[in-house]
């Protein structure tokens, strides 16, 4: 009997341990804040938001702050961290990690798998510019919220099958272009209604062959040279490793 109880207890403890271990392994942290830019309430809020977003769209959305990149580039650090900490949905490891170092004033947004396609071009510009605006104002927690909010918008519009940003910009440009072209056409049509225009010159009455240029001198006076520093371009690129392909963008602020 005691043996039975022992076996039962052992089994229960073993099962509990297995369960706990499974939960530990499967529970991903969507907010990893080594630099403590977020308060604990902010961290909880973002953790919930990013985790539900990840689950809903099957695309891990991770936010990581770190003091240093351990001698690697921001891009390598982000890719390694993402690959080595069990992130990513499906076999291609779909997801995004936004790595920020306030110490080094550098950031990187790394995309993996299907996220490479979702977060690119205009949509990546939109996400990056929102984050960068906050970073340039030293609003680091704001940049995390911007990351979560803009990523939600992008994933929603991608799910709906329409890139709302492109559509919105396209319609605004079309309306403005239509108004400008319409105005030009009407002005041209109006001009055609009145062809009684004064003659400002007497070109028709120049005596043939009478133009005689007696002095034609071009004298050098001085010169000025202006020097402008060339802008340093932000990094952007993709890499492939361990069956996953990464894309992304980052830079200093």
């Amino acid at each position, binding site marked *: 009997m005691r043996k039975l109880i022992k076996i039962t207890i052992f089994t229960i403890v073993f099962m509990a341990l297995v369960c706990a271990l499974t939960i530990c392994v499967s529970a991903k942290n969507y907010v990893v804040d080594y630099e403590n830019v977020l308060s604990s309430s902010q961290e909880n809020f973002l953790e919930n938001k990013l985790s539900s977003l990840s689950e809903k769209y099957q695309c891990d959305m991770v936010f990581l702050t770190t003091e240093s990149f351990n001698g690697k580039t921001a891009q390598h650090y982000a890719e390694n961290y993402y690959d080595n900490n069990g992130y990513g949905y499906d076999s291609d490891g779909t997801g995004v990690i936004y790595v920020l170092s306030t110490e080094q004033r550098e950031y990187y947004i790394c995309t993996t798998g299907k996220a490479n396609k979702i977060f690119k071009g205009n949509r990546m510009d939109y996400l990056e510019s929102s984050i960068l605006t906050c970073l340039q104002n030293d609003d680091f927690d704001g940049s995390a919220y911007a990351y979560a909010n803009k990523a939600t918008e992008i994933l929603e519009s991608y799910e709906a099958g329409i890139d709302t940003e492109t*559509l919105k910009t396209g319609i605004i440009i*079309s309306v403005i272009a239509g108004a400008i072209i319409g105005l030009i056409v009407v002005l041209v049509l109006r001009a055609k209604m009145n062809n009684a225009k004064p003659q400002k010159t007497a*070109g028709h009455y*120049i005596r043939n062959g009478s133009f005689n240029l007696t002095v034609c001198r071009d004298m050098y006076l001085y010169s000025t040279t*202006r020097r402008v520093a060339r802008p340093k371009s932000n990094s952007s690129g993709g890499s492939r490793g361990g069956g996953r392909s990464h894309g992304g963008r980052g830079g200093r602020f």
Partner: protein
Amino acid sequence: MSNTLLEYKCPCCSGAINFDSEAQKLVCPYCNTEFDIEAITDFNEAEQDGANQEEPTWEEYTTESGSGDWQSGEELNVYTCSSCAGEIVADDTTSATLCPYCGSPVLLTGRLTGAFRPDYVIPFSISREEAMKSFNDFMKGKLLLPKDFKTKHTTAKLEGIYVPFWLYDCDTDSSLRYRATTVRRWSDSNYTYTKTSHFLLTRAGSLGFDKVPADASTKMDDIYMQAIEPYDYSKMIGFEMPYLTGFMAEKYDVDPTSASIVANERIKASTLGEFAKTTAGYATVTPQSANIKILNGKTGYALLPVWMINTTYNNETYTFAMNGQTGKFVGRLPISTKKCFGWFGIIAGAIAGIGAIISLLASLL
């Protein structure tokens, strides 16, 4: 050897540079720009030149300089409109019944006295029917013309009128200066460089003009008379009375000196244009000074053929003029505001619609 000290203006910042005659190069104390001595002196001469402007002089027009007095048998009748005071002349065989300016039928007749005899005339080569056809053609394809204009406008009598013009011959002697720049850009790994070189261009020369016309009648709109130019002077002949038969003629009421103001401006503008063509090859060219002298100015007097159409629509008069020699037709037609908005709406809407469809296709994922 004593040094002469002269003060010059810096071409770059307009600051004062004290000029030591022994020095070979100059540096502006304000903007640190380096100059050759020759560049500084030439530049400052140009500054002075700009102020010297001479008034053009035209030889006085008299019966001696022109075609002389009227000959016997060349008497003309003058018709004065009692409504608008417009004056027209016609020979004995042509009787004016309506004022060509206001359409009034009350005309007072008298004999022409005290006016110059024209030197030249260009006969009409466009017929009344061709003039009317040109008016109808002019209205074709005008998308903003009010729908009812063609039916509602009342065409006043179409009149062929010989309009008096003063014709000016002259030579010009000009000296001009321009500031010009060339720009060169290059870059290395860290910087982009822009080098702007400044130059002073000097041009001088002569240019001749023949028979620049200026409307000698206040009744005729100067703009319309300029718009129907040019006339083909190769068909211009000495004035003879028979050319007036069947047509009205305007009596000149602007003297040659007053009318020359417009001709002077046009001659100067054309001279500037001809010299500007010699300054090609620079990134920017800015005229700095221009001294244009009008020399050997001679005036002639000609009657040139014009078809005039006056029409009324919604209580407003619309005037059209046609060159009676070349057929060039000018005028102002009424504009329908409704049609302006309509076309704007159609074009803006169509482009916005097409753009929206393209945007939608481009945004599909």
